[in-house]
């Protein structure tokens, strides 16, 4: 008697699982940055073109492969061609690297979430120095939110070489994050299917609340106008198109094997074409929605900082020239400055270096992405809202849901091939396999809780997945179109969903998407080669800002290892199969 494959309870669970996986932190913290850098509203044009040329076809391809082969990534590619088992292994390796470092973000979200239950919020004010006469020196030089992130959360060391000790608070949060992930994947699709209802829908509820709150904030309109005014001249910048392609590619989570794993739990007659279109559209719409929220928050923060700056200048002038309170306002500041310069030239000249030119544009121009946006900029905006505790809890809970949703996909990509393989599955129940995987990842993840952990995190974030994924998906597309054969694939799809894919899909799979990926690969390789030494941003506590440093030798070696470990699997897998077949043939020929 064969044990039947576990299935999703209904197609909605599958769609929610894909949405929960694809809609992740990148939608919230990368897309708004790209929008700002590459022309505001105009960026949507390359974004949608890439979605149609690259996102939807590749997503449909992966879902169809998973649904047809009904196996995880290793098994599925082995069925397509025995020489391609390396592709599946490469996907698993990349997913393994990703899950190692990605859960650290959930640990940070937990940390901030737990600290949100205080009044005032701990990142709202600087802590006092030892003799209580003023604030901590490092905190004075930078802002209280940056201090809380770099000193009290990360306790970051000045460079990669100074590893420092493990932060037990972060280690606790990381352990908790892994326990939560284990709880969700413990029973396979049975438990994951129910969890994704929450992880997929809750972020939208929070985003809507934030949209309403964000749009009603003072100064939010400034941010929205700044973002949506299209700067169409950016369209001629090739970087805009490349960033759009890269964003679509990585945002959908192609190549990790998670989509294949999720689709393998589908019923064979599931309409994956419709689901692919739905998931990719929802993913892109969420990015745009999240950037509306982000930009209203940006606008609020920039306006608040601008007004604080003006108030500081007013106070400085009032104190220096002993003017009556209320005589200097934001409106008459310009005229009063000229008047004072004329009447008291010497004192004014002395004061001049301290008088900053406050500019709203400069505040809005500070484009931030990544953890900086999520943990510094947002928390700075939140601390100035009314009832900040409520908004803080909501926001970090949303980040947590987004992160855990993506983690479910990552762990599914690792576990599905393991539970598919008969060798492992017969000896250990899936609870034990999941537990072992979570435990190993948690222990390795403790590296990222050390003082230099954030630098290692950046290494993994920038290099572990980028190049390898492009190669994996390229090989996948070429394999399905040319090795498996597009006619055979058409027939399989016809069996599954009842109709053949039309010419749009076929052209994209066979020509457009591979060409796009090849051009992306060429761009990235030339970029790496041309930049020469790789550099990173280190936090300098004495200055209170980030400084650029070169990576030491062993860090470069680790980067090389990360890229090689996954990309080498593809040729090694093919070679291994070739040798095995040769040996078998020789054995057969000697027997016969």
């Amino acid at each position, binding site marked *: 008697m064969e044990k*039947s494959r576990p299935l999703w309870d209904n197609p909605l669970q599958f769609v929610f699982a894909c949405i929960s996986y694809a809609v992740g932190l990148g939608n919230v913290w990368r897309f708004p940055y790209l929008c700002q850098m590459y022309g505001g509203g105009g960026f949507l044009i390359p974004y949608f073109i890439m979605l149609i040329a690259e996102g939807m076809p590749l997503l449909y391809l992966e879902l169809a492969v998973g649904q047809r082969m009904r196996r995880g990534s290793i098994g599925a590619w082995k069925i397509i061609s025995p020489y391609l088992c390396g592709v599946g292994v490469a996907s698993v390796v990349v997913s393994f690297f990703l899950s190692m470092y990605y859960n650290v973000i959930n640990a940070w979200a937990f940390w901030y979430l737990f600290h949100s239950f205080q009044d005032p919020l701990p990142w709202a004010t600087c802590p*006092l120095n030892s003799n209580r006469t003023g604030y901590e020196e490092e905190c004075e030089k930078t802002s209280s939110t940056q201090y809380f992130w770099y000193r009290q959360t990360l306790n970051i060391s000045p460079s990669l070489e100074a590893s420092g000790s493990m932060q037990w608070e972060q280690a606790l949060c990381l352990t908790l994050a892994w326990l939560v992930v284990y709880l969700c994947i413990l029973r396979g699709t049975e*438990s994951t299917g129910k969890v994704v209802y929450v992880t997929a829908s809750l972020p939208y509820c929070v985003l809507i609340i934030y949209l309403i709150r964000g749009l009603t904030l003072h100064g939010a309109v400034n941010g929205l106008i700044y973002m949506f005014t299209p700067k169409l001249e950016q369209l001629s910048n090739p970087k805009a198109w490349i960033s759009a392609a890269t964003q679509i590619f990585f945002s959908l989570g192609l190549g990790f094997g998670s989509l294949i794993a999720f689709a393998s739990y589908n019923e064979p007659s599931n309409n994956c074409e419709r689901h692919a279109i739905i998931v990719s559209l929802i993913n892109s719409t969420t990015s745009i929605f999240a950037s509306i929220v982000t930009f209203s928050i940006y606008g609020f923060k920039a306006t608040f900082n601008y007004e604080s700056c003006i108030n500081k200048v007013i106070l400085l002038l009032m104190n220096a020239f002993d003017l009556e309170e209320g*005589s200097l306002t934001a409106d008459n500041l310009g005229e009063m400055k000229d008047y004072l310069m004329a009447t008291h030239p010497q004192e004014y000249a002395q004061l001049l270096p301290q008088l900053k030119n406050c500019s709203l544009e400069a505040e809005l121009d500070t484009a931030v992405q990544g953890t900086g946006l999520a943990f510094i900029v947002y928390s700075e905006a939140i601390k100035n809202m009314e009832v900040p505790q409520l908004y803080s809890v909501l926001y970090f809970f949303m980040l947590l849901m987004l992160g855990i949703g993506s983690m479910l996909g990552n762990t599914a990509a690792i576990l599905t091939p393991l539970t598919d393989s008969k060798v492992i599955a017969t000896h250990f129940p899936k*609870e034990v396999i999941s537990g072992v995987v979570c435990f190993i990842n948690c222990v390795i993840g403790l590296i990222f809780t050390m003082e230099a952990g954030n630098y290692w995190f950046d290494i993994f974030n920038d290099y572990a997945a980028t190049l390898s994924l492009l190669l994996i998906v390229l090989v996948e597309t070429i394999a399905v179109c040319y090795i498996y054969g597009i006619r055979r694939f058409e027939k399989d799809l016809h069996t599954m969903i009842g109709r053949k894919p039309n010419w749009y899909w076929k052209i994209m799979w066979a020509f457009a998407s591979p060409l796009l990926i090849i051009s992306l690969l060429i761009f990235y390789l030339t970029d790496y080669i041309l930049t020469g030494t790789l550099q990173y941003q280190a936090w300098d506590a004495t200055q209170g800002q980030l400084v650029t440093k070169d990576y030491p030798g062993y860090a470069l070696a680790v980067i090389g290892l990360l890229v090689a470990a996954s990309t080498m699997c593809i040729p090694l897998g093919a070679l291994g199969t070739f040798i095995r077949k040769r040996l078998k043939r020789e054995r057969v020929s000697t027997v016969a």
Partner: protein
Amino acid sequence: MLRVSLLTLSVVAIAHAELCKPDAQNAFKVRLSIKTALGENAYAWDANEEYLFKAMVAFAMRRYSSKSTTQISNVLLCNVTDRVSFWFVVTDSSKNVTTVPGSEVEAAIRMNRNRINSAFLLSDKTLQFLKITSTLSPPVEPATPVWLIVFGVVLCLIVAGIVFLVVSGIQKHKKKTKESTERENLEEKGEVTVTVENGIPCEVLDLKAGHVNGVFAADDERFTPL
């Protein structure tokens, strides 16, 4: 008589002007931001407020040195501006035309800062004594940090969930193996036939992976009855 009193008054005035001027020795600058602190309830700074200030400083000196020799007339104010800021200095009545050392004044003000602030309905930030640093009050910190409490609660919930799922999984597994051994025993005896389709038992097919083919669904009426 009149001339003598005029002379002494002018001498005193000149002496005071000597003692109290901006950046004089042992003089301190004070800055008030009444409108910022009180908004609409702001009071105007006039001679009465100055009198209160002198009284508060004299009170602080008395409390600090615990000798009741400092009088309101010992406190001299000068250079009052619209900002509201002014300089003050405390003279020593026992020694003629000298001022109390700045360190004593500073210590006295520091000791009684709260009382002085509340007399004017202001705070450390809005009633500033330049050069006298105020001791900032530390934030209230509970014995166990709040975050650990929340962390503990969440951790217990998650661990309870995991234990529940694992234990129920083990129980289900035990029940299934018991059932399958029972079924195997019955099969050996030949009493139970399990309909099997392509190696997959029909019950499982029915639940999820199988579809009933409508064409072959027995619609008995279509067949001619015997």
